[in-house]
């Protein structure tokens, strides 16, 4: 019995560790690195004469209203069905090779509930040139505080 209890406890501990690890890894591992773009690289593109991407914010409207990347459009929180429908509707008529950058920045990267569903939806629609802005902590820390350009308002 004692040995059984010990084994049970070990199994529970391992399960808990596994669960916590999965939570911690989250979306960081589930969006392939090749589909990510860093803030500094996006800023370089935006300031260059190269083709500008279509910028779509797929997170919180209150956060968007406080600060967003100039020229970006608010779509809706992609974690919700409504947000995903709005995203699909917004891009449906675009060429599937269109350069599009999705971003949120509501939460630390591993906890963002929006970028993964948005990225999945875009790829399911056949878009081949979509990048997700890698925001490690949040939009304030990783974009605004670095002095990158912002716009405010609805």
């Amino acid at each position, binding site marked *: 019995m004692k040995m059984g209890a010990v084994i049970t406890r070990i199994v529970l501990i391992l399960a808990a560790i596994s669960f916590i690890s999965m939570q911690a890894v989250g979306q960081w591992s589930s969006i392939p690195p090749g589909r990510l773009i860093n803030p500094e690289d996006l800023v370089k593109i935006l300031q260059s004469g190269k083709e500008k991407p279509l910028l779509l914010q797929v997170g919180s409207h209150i956060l968007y*209203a*406080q600060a967003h990347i100039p020229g970006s459009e608010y779509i809706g929180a992609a974690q919700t069905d409504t947000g995903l429908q709005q995203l699909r509707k917004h891009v449906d008529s675009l060429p599937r090779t269109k350069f599009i950058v999705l971003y949120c920045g509501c*939460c630390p990267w591993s906890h963002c509930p929006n970028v993964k569903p948005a990225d999945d939806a875009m790829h399911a629609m056949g878009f081949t040139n979509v990048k997700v802005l890698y925001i490690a*902590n949040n939009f*304030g*820390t990783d974009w605004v505080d670095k002095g990158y350009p912002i716009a405010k308002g609805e």
Partner: protein
Amino acid sequence: MGRIGAPHNAAASSKQKPLAPDFTLPQLDGQPLSLSSYRGKVVLLDFWATWCVPCREETPHFVELQQKYGDRGLQIIGISMDDSPDPVRPFTQQFHVNYPVVMGTAKTGEEYGGVLGLPIAFLTDRDGRIVAKHIGATDAAVFEREITGLLQTQ
């Protein structure tokens, strides 16, 4: 109303501590709540949202802190940055939230220096001055240590 800039810490002298910008915001039942009505209490302002995983993880700790220190002068106020109160009401019931929750706005966020990522918590002393700002999930023991220190002052 003022605007809060850089993070603050409890070591700052009294003159250096900025007053927390006052606000009057609707609670979940529509009744207005003003921050200034809590002058004389130690207030923990928690900017959060239902879709924010770290915020959800912090909520039980805040419930416990309110329960433990409420009669000594602690008042926690949740400022939801959800775009609608619809998901907030069931959340507060499910988590047995024992402190008031108001619906924040972009303006509120801007007055507090930009709430561009969640969670963010501000702790004010009994004079309504901000003595600590925590960006991201914060250990409950840190909050408790700061709160008990502030509650000792009358």
